[in-house]
């Protein structure tokens, strides 16, 4: 089995990895690059805990062979977390207790990021729709929707850009 070399942009830096053919982006991130914010809840595309942004769009890294993202821009939760402090979405999750065990949180935050980039003032219904692929077994979702609403208020209220697209 010959390994293959794949290059892509990860959180603003160029990375080059040597992988077995059709290794998932999830596995490369977690096992090779140490980007473990991207979680592994099902590897079936069913839980959303491995959500990353590919060219700004949320995708499931467990279903993506890393070869498919060659030359593309991948952003994980590490990529939106400032060196000091928190992104406004993270602050809102923290303040609203939009998490309990924390396992679904990275996926939730990444979908929230993509949603607010597309639609800065989403309705609660639009938020619920956006996170419908992200399963949380602890919170019951309301605090998560509250957090995304709060983040939307802050980001659009202050005219702050969330970057990305």
């Amino acid at each position, binding site marked *: 089995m010959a390994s293959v070399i794949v290059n892509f942009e990860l959180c603003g830096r160029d990375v080059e990895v040597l992988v077995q053919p059709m290794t998932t982006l999830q596995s490369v991130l977690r096992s090779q690059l140490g980007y473990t914010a991207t979680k592994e809840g*099902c590897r*079936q595309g069913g839980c959303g805990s491995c959500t990353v942004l590919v060219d700004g769009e949320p995708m499931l890294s467990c279903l993506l062979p890393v070869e498919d993202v060659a030359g593309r821009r991948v952003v*994980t939760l590490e990529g939106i977390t400032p060196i000091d402090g928190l992104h406004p979405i993270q602050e809102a999750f923290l303040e609203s207790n939009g998490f309990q065990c924390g396992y679904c949180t990275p996926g939730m935050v990444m979908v929230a990021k993509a949603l607010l980039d597309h639609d800065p003032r989403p309705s609660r219904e639009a938020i619920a729709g956006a996170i419908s692929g992200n399963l949380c077994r602890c919170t019951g979702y309301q605090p998560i929707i509250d957090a995304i609403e709060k983040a939307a208020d802050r980001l659009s209220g202050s005219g702050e850009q969330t970057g990305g697209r």
Partner: protein
Amino acid sequence: MPQALNVVGRSVVRSDGVGHVTGRTRFAGDLVFPGMLHLKMVRSPVHHARIRGVDLGEAERVPGFVRALTWRDVPHNVYTILSLIGVEPEEEFVLAQERVRYKGEPIVAVIAETEAAALEAVAKVRLDLEELPAVFDVEEALRPGAPVVTDWGNNTFMFEGHPSRRVRLGNVEAGFARSDYIVEAVYNSSPIEQAPTETTGCVAVPEANGRYTVYTNTQALYFSLDNTAIILQIPGKRLHFVGGTVGGGFGGKVDVIVEPIATLAAMKTGRPVRYVFSRSEEMQVSSTRSAWRIYMKDGVTRDGHILARKVTSYADSGAYSRQTPYALTKHAANVAGPYAIPNVSIDAYCVYTNRTPASAMRGFGVTMGSFAVEVQMDRIAERVGVDPWTIRFINAYHNGDLRPHRKIAEDATLIETMQAAAAFVGHQLSDEQKAMTSAPRASLEGVR
């Protein structure tokens, strides 16, 4: 001088919150060690079978295959999780020996260089199984001639010499005879999977000093350490368990399933070994809340006093008992409900079937009992012709009442809780109900 409260009554930011929202929290399955191997399990494809043979030949030829573990490799292959608190007999096999008793029961552990190689090798292990009749219903399992799941000839767990956990107070037959109404019903529930977002898993790492560090997402760190030591027949001091970060558990991660075999694999290979359930394993083989069947018969007077309650409950423990005997004990202590009933008879059975072993889940034992009790109370109210609030005020226990398991109630709050609930939902209580308290009764006359 009392200090001002600075936590109680306030919202505080959780200490693990920043780690969670940044994804920096390290869960057990996030850890990667140089040279780490991957363990995957060969599982029974059927509910009940005799194992005639296991052929590893083809699996061993998969590139990346390192070794396999069978029951012969496990120093003490039979155990009971609750043996640490004196529950017996030891009955669960770490790896199946001559029989498999539920679909998904582990038979052979395969260790390989990569997860992909481990999965491929698992697929290439050939099992020679003689399928046996299986039983999936608690009452069918107790009938003569039913398929026997255990090694001791029947499907019953024994509680100190009795086939059920028993509670007796007064004389229920006499109570029924004095009653105006008899209200009887049966309550059934299905198993429930806790389905945490993070699946059960651990990484076992051999250390230079001869110890093994086990990073695990168990909810029961020391239960896991002690049972691992027993199964591996090594002193507990050779094990260092690191835990406390759990990606959802709800009771589903209190069983000791992955740690012993991952540690054994690390011992046999001298390398770190990762054993993390796939989602389908989490759904199929991690233990569930048990299925229940609860028969309840109450004798009630015309004015709504319950004189006698007889309960026969069956918890479906699945193929092994795990924490279900404990659930039955809690169940038996609580299934009369928070009500003062002078004549009570409870028999709660822990029954073995060929289903996935059941275990802990949020209030297990009590939850289904409470469901049955409260639906039953509504039925009694309907029969007596009073509203559901009234039947509960009439029968609520007070401090000082004797509960069926011989404990004097000293924490009664049902009356006050109902008064608060009524205020929240705008339900108008009678003056008498508003004036009631859980304070001890003036005389025990009310409790016939």
